[in-house]
């Protein structure tokens, strides 16, 4: 699968959940390429913005969509990667700020 093929699938998925993909399509395609690279590398779509352990058991919280996505969108309007965002974030109604890492330190590959 290519990033271009994955794009409409995840776009529909996001809309079905009341959220959106970042309206910057080229930026999103870069993220999707990273996701697909990780899928080939590890066998699952590990978050491309985080260093994976490489075993699903240790990375299950960061398989996209990660478990931190919803609280991050609620608090900041976007997920850590800025892949999934709220409609308000896309419309520029809320400030775009760097989302701090919510994944607990003990779970991170350090």
């Amino acid at each position, binding site marked *: 699968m290519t990033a271009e093929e994955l794009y409409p699938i995840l776009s529909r998925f996001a809309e079905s959940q009341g959220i959106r993909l970042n309206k910057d399509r080229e930026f999103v395609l870069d993220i999707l390429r*990273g996701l697909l690279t990780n899928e080939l590398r590890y066998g699952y779509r590990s978050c491309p*913005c985080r260093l994976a352990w490489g075993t699903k058991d240790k990375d299950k919280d960061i398989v996209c969509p990660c478990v931190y996505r919803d609280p991050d969108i609620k608090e900041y309007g976007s997920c850590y*990667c800025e892949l999934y965002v709220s409609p308000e974030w896309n419309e520029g109604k809320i400030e775009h700020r760097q989302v701090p890492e919510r994944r607990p330190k003990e779970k991170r590959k350090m």
Partner: protein
Amino acid sequence: MAPSKNKKIKLYTLSTCSHCLKTKKFFNDAGIEVDITDVDLLTGAERERIMDEVRKLNPDCTFPTICIDDKVVVGFNEERIRKALGE
């Protein structure tokens, strides 16, 4: 941009990360030479050694970690990068 060119700049990045790509593009477009390490592409002892460097600069070990001389910028934040470059 001239003063930036005398600075020692290291980027610790992930090859898959779009914020890291933006960071690489920023320096490339500005014509500023940087030393780039994609940590996810390293293995074994080499990765451990590089992660030790990242940990000292950014205890959160998040990416990109950008080191401009003695200043550290975490994440792609153009304003902070420009400030660290002395612009």
